[in-house]
């Protein structure tokens, strides 16, 4: 029996080439025509799958070039990555929204995502002083203040505590904030992309607080990040002891630096801002701190000039993710309307869908798992007749709360409260299948 015939005797000269180049290479008889077309489609900015007939040479009866060649071996990509043709599925920012990118936000491409879990590389970002790159061996969590036994914990220490994994969404309360006044952005990514959902693994905050021992005067916790913003919020102790987690992992792997590596706080169902990333300090006190991030920001300005503070809860919300401006319809016929719903109060109980702008509604199917304070998938079968339509979804949660219309929200809060726009989203379908962000009265 000879030694492994591949070893040292054969090297794939195409290994380093992008797939399009490989397949269009000379000597690949099928490749030339079809991949000139594919290359043109890519550079022309047309989505794969959206331009019918572009790859007919690989469809039956022809055999496809990738079926007649040897693929790349294992560990060709030691840490995997999406297919090259998925290059457009990325986080994006709105350049005119902020002064720079360090104190800014990026939006998740939820128009291209398919389940309740957000891939780690696509989770939206919100930084206040850029993304710090932290050496975990030097990272510490200090817990002090009104405690019996103030502690300094290393990452090793934290990972020794009993671990727990839970699936929760995080939504920036400014998600939809640009739509208070009117429909502005013709894109699901930009109207709803400041949300993500992941399985978070770490230690219960209550376990850490038991370990330091709370003094009876302790009523609030200051939570602070190790970033340049030293990002700081106050949290009432009841919430800390209820379901907060101090996590080091997201969807099974270490947190990404953009998500707080090596340690962040998860405050299930509450606005993203309190889920402090790069968590380094927890201080127990008897009153809230009224930090800049809970007075001048993350407060909701009302029409009478007053402002609401400590509005932590994310109320029930939903959105149709297909169709949407980025994913138009392709002619009349049967479609599955798809979407996501969530609530900071608990589980989503029901989602209704309308195709006539809210005159008539029918309940959508909720897909398992329906988890508390997590994204929930819904679908609704719809035969489109090719006529103009107005699609909306409306979520209800187990507390009985009903997702409001933008008209109702404006009636209560005006147009300058920036945060917590959880209104029903309307997608206008035109006869050519294109989709637009509109608002109704």
């Amino acid at each position: 029996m000879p030694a492994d015939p591949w070893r040292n005797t054969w090297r794939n000269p195409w290994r380093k080439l992008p797939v399009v180049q490989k397949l269009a290479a000379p000597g690949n008889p099928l490749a030339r025509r079809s991949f000139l077309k594919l290359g043109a489609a890519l550079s022309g900015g047309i989505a794969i799958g959206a331009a019918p007939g572009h790859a007919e040479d690989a469809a039956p009866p022809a055999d496809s070039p990738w079926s007649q060649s040897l693929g790349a071996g294992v560990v060709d990509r030691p840490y995997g990555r999406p297919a090259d043709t998925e290059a457009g599925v990325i986080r994006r920012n709105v350049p005119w929204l902020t002064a720079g990118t360090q104190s800014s936000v990026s939006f998740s491409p939820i128009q291209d995502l398919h389940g309740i879990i957000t891939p780690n590389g696509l989770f939206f970002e919100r930084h206040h002083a850029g993304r710090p790159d932290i050496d975990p061996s030097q990272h510490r969590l200090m817990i002090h203040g009104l405690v019996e036994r103030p502690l300094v914990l290393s990452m090793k220490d934290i990972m020794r505590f009993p671990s727990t994994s839970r699936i929760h969404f995080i939504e920036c309360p400014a998600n939809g904030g640009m739509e208070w006044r009117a429909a502005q952005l013709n894109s699901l990514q930009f109207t709803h992309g400041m949300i993500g959902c992941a399985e978070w693994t770490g230690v219960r905050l209550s376990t850490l607080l038991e370990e330091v021992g709370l003094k009876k005067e302790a009523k609030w916790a200051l939570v602070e990040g190790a970033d340049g913003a030293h990002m700081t919020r106050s949290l009432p102790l009841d919430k800390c002891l209820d379901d907060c987690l101090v996590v080091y992992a997201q969807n099974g792997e270490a947190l990404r630096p953009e998500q707080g590596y090596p340690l962040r706080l998860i405050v299930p169902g509450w606005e993203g801002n309190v889920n402090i990333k790069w968590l380094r300090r927890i201080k127990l006190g008897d009153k809230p701190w009224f930090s800049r991030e809970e007075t001048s920001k993350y407060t909701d300005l009302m029409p009478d000039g007053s402002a609401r503070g400590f509005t932590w809860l994310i109320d029930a919300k939903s959105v149709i993710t297909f169709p949407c401006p980025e994913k138009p319809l392709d002619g009349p016929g049967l479609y599955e309307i798809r979407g996501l719903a969530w609530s900071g109060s608990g589980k989503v109980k029901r989602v209704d869908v309308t195709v006539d702008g809210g005159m008539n509604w029918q309940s959508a199917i909720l897909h398992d798992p329906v988890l508390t304070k997590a994204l929930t998938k819904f679908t609704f079968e719809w035969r489109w007749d090719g006529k103009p339509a107005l699609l909306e979804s409306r979520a209800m949660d187990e507390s009985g709360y009903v997702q409001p219309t933008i008209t109702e929200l404006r009636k209560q809060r005006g147009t300058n409260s920036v945060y917590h726009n959880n209104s029903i989203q309307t997608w206008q379908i035109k006869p050519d299948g294109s989709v637009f962000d509109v608002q109704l009265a």
Partner: protein
Amino acid sequence: MFSLLKSRIALSATLFILSAQVAAAGEPGHFGYGKVATPAEIAGWDIDVRGNDGAGLPAGKGSVQRGADIFAEQCAACHGTFGEGEGRFPKLAGGNGTLQDDRPEPTVGSFWPFAPTLFDYINRAMPMPAPHTLPVDDVYALTAYILNLNDIVANDFVADRDSLPQVKMPNRDHFIWTDPRPDTQDRPCMSACAPEAGVKITSTAEGRNLTPRTTGPLDTMQPE
């Protein structure tokens, strides 16, 4: 015999001490991981200042005059010489009486409820390229200057741990710290829900040219 008894007593005493050192589940120190924070470690990171009463403000002081010099050097490039804000960087002064306007201007002077919060924020987060590097006296001086830009303190004001909590911010009493939600009244109507006049589109993102298309090749948004 006597020595055996003695050693038994000693042994049980030792066991008692050992068991006393292991905290029960749910008690402080049960896991025993990490190390107890020293006063010096705590002092190094214990930077927070409470907004409403200034608890945690450190020793030190700074005048409006000194603040003007530091502001010109450290802050004006983004916030403007008089706090007017360059580009989309935050405006720090002005906007008084605009909170009920169609386009309100929330600034330190028109919106912020507590003066010590200003010290806390500058100290922890500014200047943006080098946060938490300014000496305490400089932070006090900048706080004094920004309050003065907003006509909240006089030109001779000196900010310190005693004076800052005394400053009453104009908008202090206009915050509601208890969340009044749910504040919407929608019901889950299922049929014939819209008004007789029918559904009307009041705004559309179509043609507004606000949607970025700058990155990524695969958008299929219509029209081009």
